[in-house]
């Protein structure tokens, strides 16, 4: 209380009446929510009690076929092979029933594909939303819209908004981390902070998949992992660096002593301390070898040809466990099955089923699932008809995703598409509505999570968004 900083702190508190902490004075001028978004000052300011404290998004890029995976349509099965009456580019295309059988899972008896048995084990925790829809049936804009709400304009991503609203829980770690994000389909736009303070930006761990066809020409080993930048100083020992940091601090404190009320200098002082702590803590958090063999086996680390997704799912758990607010993991294979869907869908499923199931098991047994929201889904779905014979086109008018934990009801289907799975008709859930619902689960009112930039007020949900109250516990 009696530190040389207290005077200006008080002055600041007086000014903002909310206690912004040290960070981003000029940036944080939002009219309503004034949560500190700093790494250093965890300040949770929800609009109402939060059900979820953290989020893990498993992004299934490419457009997973909802009519094969999560949206069971007996009519589609029955009329498979008949001409489709729906769809703008469906002329001459026939309906195609599920290419692999559905089955029922759990006490709730949810219908899901037989290709995802390990996820199916958690059916009673899954809230399957069957009435998703988005604006465009092209990958890049749809991926960007899913992440930022807009494909036309540069906007902050959902994770950045979350961090802006809630701040971080661990002052030694970044609050928003994305693992191996694809470089294409909007690239860093999908974890960008746009105009939000730079501290809200997603920190990328690992180089992601490459745009489009380029990925065919590179092996995984070519994509050197790049963790958080500048975490290491190879030329100085920790003690030497501490000595240097002490010198910087003394210089900065001398400046503060010469002149009161310099919040920016206070910010700089704290940023060095956090930086030093991050150097200590981050490498440990990233070290998944510290996990038990049983856990590694559960996720499937060391099994199969490519265990990257298994490793990333463990890492995702370690990160949220250590207070990271928002983690995103991209699927290793894509789900863009225009051709040969009957052969390729099982591959895409197999690549994520075990690790995803393990993640849910692991979170549950650690008591974390109830306040961790897990989301599994892609940017759109696929058509119930097959323009070729064994493949499906993009479909943005109706698709499915599931959420688990974090205050959503388990073992339910919400909303519905028409009888063949083409268009969302019952409780349609636009990306905006979904964003509004996710923010709601985090205790944030999407209409009040506002940021003013360049004289304009911005919201994740723009002028729309309806919270799907029915799925909340």
């Amino acid at each position, binding site marked *: 209380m009696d530190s040389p900083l207290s005077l200006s702190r008080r002055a600041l508190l007086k000014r903002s009446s909310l206690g912004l902490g040290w960070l981003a004075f000029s940036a944080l001028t939002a009219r309503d929510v004034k949560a500190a978004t700093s790494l250093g000052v965890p300040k949770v300011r929800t609009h109402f009690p939060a059900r979820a404290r953290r989020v893990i998004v498993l992004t299934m890029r490419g457009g997973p076929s909802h009519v094969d995976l999560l949206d069971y349509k007996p009519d589609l099965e029955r009329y498979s092979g008949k001409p489709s009456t729906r769809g703008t580019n469906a002329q001459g295309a026939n309906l195609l029933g599920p290419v692999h059988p559905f089955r029922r899972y759990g006490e709730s008896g949810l219908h899901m594909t037989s290709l995802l048995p390990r996820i199916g084990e958690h059916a009673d925790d899954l809230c399957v939303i069957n009435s998703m829809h988005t604006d465009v049936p092209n990958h890049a804009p749809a991926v960007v819209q899913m992440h930022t709400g807009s494909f036309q304009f540069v906007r902050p991503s959902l994770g950045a908004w979350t961090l802006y609203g809630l701040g971080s829980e661990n002052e030694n770690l970044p609050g928003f981390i994305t693992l191996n994000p694809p470089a294409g389909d909007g690239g860093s736009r999908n974890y960008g902070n746009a105009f939000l303070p730079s501290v809200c930006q997603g920190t990328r761990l690992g180089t992601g998949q490459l745009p489009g066809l380029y990925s065919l020409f590179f092996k995984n080993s070519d994509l050197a992992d790049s963790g958080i930048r*500048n975490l290491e100083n190879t030329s*100085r020992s920790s003690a030497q660096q501490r*000595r240097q940091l002490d010198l910087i601090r003394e210089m900065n404190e001398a400046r503060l002593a010469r002149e009161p009320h310099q919040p920016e200098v206070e910010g700089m002082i704290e940023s*060095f301390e956090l930086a030093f702590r991050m150097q200590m803590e981050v490498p440990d958090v990233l070290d998944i070898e510290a996990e038990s063999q049983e856990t590694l086996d559960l996720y499937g680390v060391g099994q199969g040809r490519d265990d990257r997704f298994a490793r990333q799912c463990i890492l995702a758990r370690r990160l949220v466990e250590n207070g990271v607010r928002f983690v995103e993991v991209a699927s290793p294979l894509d789900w863009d099955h225009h051709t040969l869907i009957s052969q390729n869908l099982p591959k895409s499923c197999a690549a994520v089923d075990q690790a995803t199931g393990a993640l849910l098991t692991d979170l549950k047994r650690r008591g974390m699932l109830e306040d961790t929201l897990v989301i599994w889904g892609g940017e759109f779905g696929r058509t119930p008809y097959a323009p070729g014979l064994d493949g499906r086109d993009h479909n943005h008018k109706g698709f499915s995703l599931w959420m688990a934990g974090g205050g959503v009801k388990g073992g339910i289907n919400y909303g519905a598409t028409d009888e063949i799975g083409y268009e969302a008709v019952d409780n349609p859930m636009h990306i905006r509505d979904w964003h509004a619902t996710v923010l709601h689960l985090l205790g944030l009112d999407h209409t009040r999570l506002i940021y003013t930039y360049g004289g304009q007020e911005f919201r994740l949900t723009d002028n729309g968004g309806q919270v799907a109250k029915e799925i909340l516990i």
Partner: protein
Amino acid sequence: MRTNQRLSLEKLRRERAGAYLRARVLSALSTALLAAVINAAPSAKERFFETKIRPILADHCYECHSVEAGKSKGGLRVDDREALLSGGDSGPSLVIGKPDESLLLTSMRHTDPDLVMPPEKPRLPDSVLADFARWIAEGAVDPRKKLEGGKGKIAHDFESRKRHWSYLPIVEPEIPLTKRLDWPTSDIDRFILAKLEENHLSPSPDAAPDVLRRRLSFDLTGLPPTEADADRPWEESVDLLLNSAAYAPHWARHWLDVARYAESNGKEANLIYPHAWRYRDYVIDAFDNDLPYDRFLVEQIAGDLLPAKNDGERARLLTATGYLAIGPKNLASQVPEQFTAELIDEQIDSFSRGLLGVSLACARCHDHKSEPVTMADYYALVGIFKSTDTRYGTWVDTENNQGGHLVRLPNLPGQIILTPSLSKEALAEVRARLAQLNEDEKLAKKKAEEGRKSGTDPQKVFNAALSEALRIYWSRGPLVGQLETVDDTGKALPLCMGVVEAAKMCDSPRYDRGDLLHPGQLIPRGVPSLYGLSTEIQAPEGKSGRLQLARWIIDPENPLTARVIVNRTWSHLFGVGLVETEDDFGRTGAAPSHPELLDFLASRFRHNGWSIRWLIREILLSHTYRQSSFWRQDAFEADPDNRLLWRVNKRRLEAEAIRDSMLAASGELDVRPARGSLVATLPIQSAGMVPLNRSLPKDLDGSLHRSIYLPILRDQLPEVLQQFDFAEPSLVVGRRDTTYAAPQALYLINSDFVIARATALARRILEVAPDREARIEAAYRYCLSRKPLASEIVLAQKFIQNAKDSDLSVWQDFCQALLASADFRMID
């Protein structure tokens, strides 16, 4: 069988739709009751009206029932809520909360043969009827303004909007009288002091000379002061720096923030713009020559349409129009019309925010919500840009579906051309490959046709045709693109990004909701009627109208242009503008803190030949600028945001200045202009591939030139710029944010760049100074342009202890601490 199937599906669909409609109406009715109690958010309902209801009314009903059309058949208008409520000859059209009793809906449902709307046309889709039912049930929220029932244009409330301060003419105000007479040295000071006195505040004393010297140098050049600047009279220092070579690279960067300058497209198809740097150099030259601001704007909007004395000037004028071409685009788009509409929208948004401080693009889908801008204004501008050919380069490949062209520059002696030439053999090969692809295409078409006829498995035929078609499409793009960059002999051509007149001039229809599927009437090309100067300036026959648009922007009657640039300039010198929202002078923006001062400067600025240099000089010669930045409790309590300028704001250096002054301190800075840009030499079109290019420095720096010459790839910024709040290059940014995040600290203590600067600085001080104290002094001089305080010498001595000369590492650590210190990054 097949028909039966379809029928049953259709039946099922109808039943479902009916059930769905009933469910929606029922739930909507209960919502209506609830709504009365909890007063649900009006914005959502307005949005619903704007997206679901208004477009339908406009598309299907206005023709016969609106002021706009001058018709009210059956005595009914549907273009405002009251008209709907009072209804026409058959009675009220709306019964709020009761869709089934509302004649509007009854007529749309076609259930009453005597009341069928729209007449003689098929019933509107069920989804539309459901929307109207919901809208009525939920209270028929309708934000449209009440209109006068008679004929005539909807000019009514736009007139009051036009009375917003920024749309009113600039009037040169009287210079205010102040109580204190000894403080003001200029008219600027009189305006500032008068306001301070009004609020019982006093200005701060002058800052110390070394503080002032540093502030002035960073503000004018983005670099620390040099020894040569010392001990000159103030006015002489100002003039010296204003006319120095370091001035333009700093102030040009301010403009590039507004121009959303970048060397790649950004967005989902992030392709490089290897010629964008020419525009950057054009801007630097313009500031170096103090090109009058009005001329500067005309050149950027319509340089291609201006006369040129010689080839050199022609090249310069063409390059200027790069301004319109460097924005982000939806290159992945598969629909050319949509792509063009978005491209034009981006151009309109960027120039209107950047130059006028108002977004005209907000009138794309509906009349502007807050400004006096109609959809007609917007589509009059769209016509201008539709009649303009935007040459942004890039070729078709796996990411890009919208390859473009470039502008050919005249050949000039000594011209820099960085794109590669092709040898004779290489050129022949490219042509041969292209010819081969054209042959392949014919063959593939034939094969597919034969396959289909021969009864081969259609899936196989389809797969083969598709993969071949894609191969040809993607292989051809780069070849065609490459050929466009060389002449007939393979020699690389001088090219730039920019605009030229389109082959065909055309007006744009007004698209309802901005939806290309709903074109309305054609709007003649023209300029907005924002402030009195109405659409009278119309595009001449056979011309796009860009030149007219440019002249409208700089017209003496246009009150925005001068105010906006004066305010931007003020903001760069004081940290914040007189109008805090530098990019928004509209009704949603902030009011000016000193409206008279703003008008005074805007008016003087125009009288002084729109000279930016004159304007900066005028501000710097004021006493206001020379105040100390020291905090004062009494003043702080009265005016915590310092809007009245009782002191000068403390500011953090911008990213470029942080980097450049580190290079200056270590003696490594190369102040010569860089030759072109790293981006121009990248071997691959995709900016997403840049991190994989091992020959590039990881931090995308590796240069000793000033930061303005660093590569600006959207989403792949050089690390130092990314860390220190560089302006988002896809947006118009008048003022950057300032943050103090931990990754910045990590950058300062661990990055290769800063460590290399610290090492060079340590060597430098060991070399120039004989003993420890002299070295500490030298380090302070290089880093902070001042002598160390006694206490600072003690601190430094304590850190260095008994380090020997040979022990570079301790000196290095000390130097790096100085580079990382708050003193280094702050301007007082």
